[in-house]
C-alpha cells in the first residue's frame, strides 16, 4: 500500500526557519570588514555618478551664446577639462584598488584555527564533518554550530559538481570545486542564527541548498558538540522503537548512517541527531514530525529531482519512522 | 547628391596581387584565427602539465621516429612550396602545374607518417588528460594538413582546366602556398610539445 499523502498546506510547510542572510547585516569579523568596504566603495561611486550627471545636465541645458563653440580656445579649454577628469579617474581607481587589496590582506588571517570543519557539498545538501582527533569526530548535515569569537576554519570540498559556500552575514563566499580544496575562515562576533545558501548553480535543486550556522557561546557550543558525539538516542517510546525497526528493514539504512545502530549508508545525510536540527532537506522545511513524515512519504514532490527516492511505506510505518526521526535528538 | 569627378581609376589593374589582394588579407585573417587556436591548445597542454604530478601521465614519452620523419618532410616541402609560389608570380603555367603535383604529394606523404604517430604516443585519448591533449594537438594539425591537401588537389585540377591561365588563379596558388607554410610553421611548436617536452 502506498503511503497516504499528508495533506498539509504546502506554503506553511515549506517555510524554512528564519535567520539572517544579508551582506548588509554583518555579524562576523569578515562580514563587517566587507560591509564597510562595500559601503565605502558605493559612496565613492555614487559621488562619481552624481558628478557625471551634473555635467551631463549642465551641458544639455546650458545657454548657448552666439556661434557653436567651435573656436580654438574653447576646444582647448574642453581638452583641459577632459584631461582633468581622466586624471581624477586614474586617482580614484588607484585608491579603490589599494583599498580592496588591503581588505583582502586583513581578511587573510593565517594562524591556527580554533576549530576545523570539513564541508563536503553534494547535490543538494551539505555534509559537515567536525574533525577532532582528541574528542572524536562527528558529522552533521545542513547545520553547523560554532563558538562565538573563535576562528573556525572550513575546508571546502565537493563530491560532484561545483557549489559555493556562502554565509553573507559572516563573510564572503568560496567555491567548492571537485578535485580541489579551498579554505575559508569564519568568525562570528555575536550569537545568532545565520542562514547560508549555495551560490553556484549546481543543477536542479540549486535553489534548495541552504544551511544554517548557529553561533553560540562557548559553553553551549561544547554541550552541543558533546551531544553530537553520542551515538543515536535509544528511545523507550514504542512508536519510535518500531520506527527504528522500519528504518533498518526498509532501504533507509542503505543510504543513511545512524551511529550506534546498523545503519551505515553514506549516500544521504548522517541522521544520528537529525531530530536536533532546525530544518530538514537543506533548509527546505522546519523540522517537525509532520514535515518529517511529509518528506519521508514523498521527497520527490517536495524537492523534485533530489537524490532520495520515494520508498513505499504504509501509513503506520510512516508514522513510526517519523516518530523515530524526531526522537533522534 | 551632386557629384564632382576628381579621380580617374580606369588605369588600375583589374586584379590586385599580394597585399593589394583581398584574399591575401583574408588568408592572413584566417591564419590569425587558427594560430590563436593552436596557441591556445599549447597553453592548455602546459596548463595540464603543471597540474599533473608527473608528465607524461602514466605513459612513456612518445617514440620519436614517425614524428621526426614527418617534421623533416614538412620542412623539406617548404622549398618546392616557395618555388611554386615564385612560378605563380611569374605566371609560368607549366611549372606551376608540375609544382602543384609535387605539392599534392608533399601533402599526402606526411599523412602516411601521421598514421604511425598516433600509436607512437603510447596512450589513448580516453586514458587520461595527457592522452586527450596529445591526441587533440595531433588531430588538430592533421585536420589542417588535410584541408590544405584537398585545397591543393582542387587547385591542381583547376590549373589543368580552361580557367587556369588567369591572374586570379595564380593568386590562388600563392595563397595556397602561403597557407601550407603556415601549416608547416605551426607544426614546429606542436612537435616540440608533443615529442620533446615529455622528455624534459
Amino acid at each position, binding site marked *: 500500500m502506498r503511503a497516504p499523502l499528508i495533506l498539509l498546506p504546502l506554503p506553511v510547510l515549506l517555510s524554512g526557519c528564519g535567520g539572517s542572510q544579508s551582506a548588509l547585516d554583518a555579524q562576523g569579523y569578515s562580514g563587517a570588514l566587507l560591509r564597510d568596504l562595500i559601503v565605502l566603495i558605493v559612496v565613492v561611486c555614487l559621488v562619481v555618478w552624481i558628478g557625471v550627471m551634473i555635467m551631463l545636465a549642465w551641458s544639455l541645458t546650458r545657454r548657448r551664446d552666439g556661434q*557653436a563653440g567651435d573656436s580654438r580656445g574653447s576646444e582647448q579649454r574642453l581638452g583641459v577639462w577632459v584631461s582633468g577628469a581622466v586624471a581624477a579617474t586614474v586617482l580614484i581607481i588607484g585608491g579603490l584598488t589599494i583599498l580592496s587589496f588591503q581588505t583582502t590582506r586583513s581578511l587573510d588571517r593565517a594562524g591556527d584555527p580554533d576549530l576545523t570543519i570539513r564541508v563536503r557539498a553534494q547535490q543538494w545538501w551539505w555534509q559537515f564533518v567536525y574533525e577532532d582527533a582528541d574528542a572524536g569526530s562527528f558529522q552533521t548535515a545542513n547545520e553547523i554550530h560554532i563558538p562565538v569569537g573563535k576562528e573556525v576554519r572550513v575546508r571546502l570540498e565537493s563530491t560532484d559538481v561545483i557549489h559555493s559556500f556562502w554565509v553573507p552575514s559572516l563573510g564572503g563566499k568560496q567555491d567548492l570545486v571537485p578535485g*580541489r580544496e579551498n579554505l575559508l575562515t569564519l568568525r562570528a562576533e555575536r550569537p545568532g542564527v545565520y542562514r547560508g545558501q549555495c*551560490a553556484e*548553480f549546481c543543477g536542479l535543486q540549486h535553489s534548495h541548498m541552504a544551511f544554517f550556522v548557529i553561533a553560540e557561546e562557548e559553553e553551549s557550543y561544547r554541550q552541543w558538540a558533546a551531544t553530537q558525539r553520542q551515538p543515536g538516542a535509544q528511545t523507550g517510546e514504542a512508536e519510535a522503537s518500531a520506527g527504528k525497526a522500519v528504518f533498518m528493514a526498509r532501504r533507509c539504512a542503505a543510504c543513511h548512517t545512524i551511529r550506534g545502530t546498523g545503519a551505515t549508508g553514506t549516500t544521504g545525510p548522517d541522521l544520528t541527531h537529525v531530530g536536533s536540527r532546525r530544518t530538514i532537506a537543506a533548509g527546505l522545511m522546519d523540522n517537525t514530525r509532520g514535515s518529517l513524515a511529509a518528506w519521508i512519504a514523498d521527497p520527490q514532490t517536495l524537492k523534485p529531482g533530489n537524490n532520495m527516492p520515494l520508498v513505499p511505506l504504509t501509513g503506520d510505518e510512516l508514522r513510526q519512522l517519523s516518530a523515530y526521526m524526531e526522537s533522534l535528538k | 547628391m551632386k557629384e564632382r569627378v576628381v579621380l*580617374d581609376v580606369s588605369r588600375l589593374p583589374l586584379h590586385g596581387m599580394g597585399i*593589394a589582394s583581398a584574399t591575401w588579407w583574408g588568408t592572413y585573417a584566417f591564419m590569425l584565427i587558427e594560430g590563436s587556436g593552436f596557441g591556445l591548445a599549447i597553453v592548455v597542454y602546459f596548463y595540464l602539465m603543471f597540474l599533473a604530478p608527473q608528465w607524461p601521465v602514466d605513459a612513456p614519452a612518445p617514440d620519436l621516429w614517425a614524428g621526426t620523419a614527418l617534421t623533416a618532410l614538412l620542412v623539406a616541402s617548404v622549398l618546392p612550396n616557395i618555388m611554386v609560389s615564385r612560378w605563380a608570380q611569374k605566371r609560368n603555367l607549366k611549372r606551376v602545374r608540375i609544382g602543384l603535383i609535387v605539392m599534392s604529394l608533399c601533402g599526402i606523404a606526411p599523412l602516411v607518417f601521421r598514421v604511425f604517430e598516433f600509436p607512437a604516443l603510447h596512450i589513448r585519448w580516453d586514458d587520461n588528460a595527457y592522452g586527450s591533449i596529445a591526441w*587533440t594537438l595531433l588531430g588538430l594539425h592533421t585536420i589542417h594538413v588535410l584541408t590544405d591537401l584537398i585545397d591543393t588537389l582542387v587547385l591542381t585540377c583547376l590549373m589543368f582546366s580552361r580557367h587556369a591561365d588567369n591572374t*586570379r588563379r595564380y593568386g590562388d596558388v600563392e595563397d595556397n602556398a602561403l597557407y601550407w607554410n603556415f601549416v608547416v610553421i605551426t607544426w614546429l611548436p606542436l612537435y616540440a610539445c608533443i615529442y620533446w617536452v615529455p622528455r624534459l
Partner: protein
Amino acid sequence: MVTDADLDEAELERQLARTWTSKPGFWGAIASVDHKVVARRYIVTAFVFLILGGILALAMRLQLSQPEARFVDADRYNQIFTMHGSNMMFLFAVPVMEAMAVYLVPLMVGTRNIAFPRLNAFSYWLFLAGGLLLWISFALDTAPDIGWFAYVPLSGPEYGAGKRADIWAQMITFTEVSALAIAVEIVVTVFKQRAPGMSLDRIPLLVWSMLVMAFLVIMAMPAIMFASSTLIMDRLVGTHFYNPAEGGDALLWQHLFWFFGHPEVYIIFLPAVGMVSTILPTFVQRPVFGYLPLVMALIATGVLAFGLWVHHMFVVGLPRLGESFFTASSMSIAIPAGVQIFCWLATLWSGRPVFKTPLLFVIGFIITFVIGGLTGVMVASVPFDAQVHDTYFVVAHFHYVLIGGAVFPLIAAVYYWFPKMTGRMMSERLGQWAFWLIFISFHLTFFPMHILGLQGMPRRIYTYQPDLPWAGLNLFVSLSAIILSLGFLVFFIDAIRSWSFGRPAGDNPWNAPTLEWATSSPPPPYNFRSIPVVDDRNPLWSQPDALPVSSGLRTDRRELLITGVVEALPEARESSPQDSVWPFWAAIATSVMLIWSIFSPWAVVWGSIPIAIALIGWFWPKGEAEDES
C-alpha cells in the same frame, strides 16, 4: 570594356542596377550576396530572438514574482534562464551588432559590397541554423539547462544527462563560426575597400569600433571553440579534459570560457559606443570632440579585454596575489571608458542638442551605462565580489551594461539609420513614448536587483522561501518588467508600422556627415553611383554642395576599388562575386555535419564530404566577367 566615365547619370544607374541587382524570386533571394540584404535578414532575425528571449525573461519574472510560486518547475526554469542568457548573448546581442556592421561598414567606407560576400551569406544561414537548433530543442523540452557559461562538471558527461549540453556546445559552434566569418569580412573591408583618401585618421568612429570588435572576435572566439569542442569530446568520446580524476581540471573550463567570455561583452559593447560616437555629433551638429582619444580608447579597451577574465572567477580559490592583479586590470578599464564618457560630454557641451529620439536614447545610455560601469568597478574589487558574486547584484550589473550600455545605443541606431535602411522615417511621437517607457521601467526593473543581491539573493534560483525578505522587491521587479516589455512593444510597433507607412526620408534627413548619407535611401544594390573620394573626417559637412567622386570603374561586371591600408590610395579595381546558392548549400551541409556530430564522431568524417563538394561548387570559376583579370 564599359566604364562609367562616359555615361550620363541615368544610363549609368541603369547599367549598374543590371549588374548588381539580385534575381527576383525565391532562389534569387536565397542566392543574394548583397551585404544590405544579408544584414537586413540578420537584423530582423536577431530582433526576433530578442523578443523570444524577452518573453523568456517575462516567464522567469512571473515565476519569481512570489515565493514558492509554481508557474514554472525547476527543470523548465533552468532551461529558461539558460536559454535566455545564451539566446540574448549568442543569438541576439553579438549577431545584431555584427549585422549592423555588415550593413553600415561598406556604406560608411564608401564601397559597393562587403569583402567575401558569399562568406557573408553563408554566415547568415549558419547563424539561422544555430538559432533554430537551440529553439527547436527548447520546444522539445530538451534545451540546455546548465547556464550560459555551462560550467563543468555540471555540463560534463557525468552530470549533464541527455544531449542538452551538447546542443548548447554545438549552438556555440554555429554562432562562433558565423561570427568569425563576419569578423574576417569586416577586417578586410576596412583595410582594403575604403574610399580613396579615407586614411586611418579619417575613418568614421563606428567603423573603428567595428574593426576593433572584429579583432576581438578573431582573438577570443578560438578559445570558446576549443572549449566547446573539447566539452563535446569529453561527453562523446571519453576524453578527460575536465575530469579531475584523470588529470583534467574543472577550472580549465572556466579559464577558457572567460578568456572568451570577457572579450565577448566588449564585442557587444564596442559597436554600441561606436554608434554613440556617430549619432551624438549629428544631433549636436558639431564634429565629435576628441577623435584621436576616442580611437585610442577603443583600441585600449580591446587590448585590456584580454587581461581581465579572472574577475569572473574571484571565488574559485585562486592565489590572492593573482586575483589582486585582476582587480587592478579590471578597474583600469574605467580609464578608456571614462575618456569616452568625457569626450561625449564635451561634445554635448559645445554643441547644440536637438532632442530627437536617437539623442534621447544616447542620453539614456550615458545615465544608465555609467551606473552599470560603476557597479562593474565595484565587482572588480575581490573582497566586494566575494559578497555579491553569483547574486542579483551581478545580474543587475550586467543588465545595466548590456541593456543600458548596448541595447539603448542599438535602439538609437535603429531610429537613426532606419531612414537609410528603409527610406522612411520612424515616428517621433512613438519614439518619445518608447524612450520614456523603456528608460523609466528599465531602472524600476533592474535597480532593485542590486538591493536584492546585497540582501543575499543568489542568481539562478527558481524559487525562494516566504520568510526570506525578498518577496516585495521581486514582485515590484516583475511588475516593472511588464512595463518594460510594453516599452519594447511600442518600439517594435513603430518599426513595423514605419517600414511601410513612415514618412519618406530623403537622402540625408538628419544632416549627418558620413558617407552612407551621400547615397539614396534605401541605397541601390551598388551602394554608390560613383565611389566617393574623401578628404575629411566629416565629408558631407566639409563638401555640402558636391561630393568628390572617382570614375573609371566598369559597369558590366561587379567591380569595386581596392585601396591601401594606411592612406587608402587606390591600388586595384577588383571584382566582387556574383550571387550564388552554394553558400546556402554549404551552410546546410555544415549544419548537418555539426548536428550529426553530437551523436557520432564519425559525422566529422562522412559529414565533411558534402561540405567539400559545396565548397568546390562555391569556388569553382564559372567563366563570368568577374573572373577576368
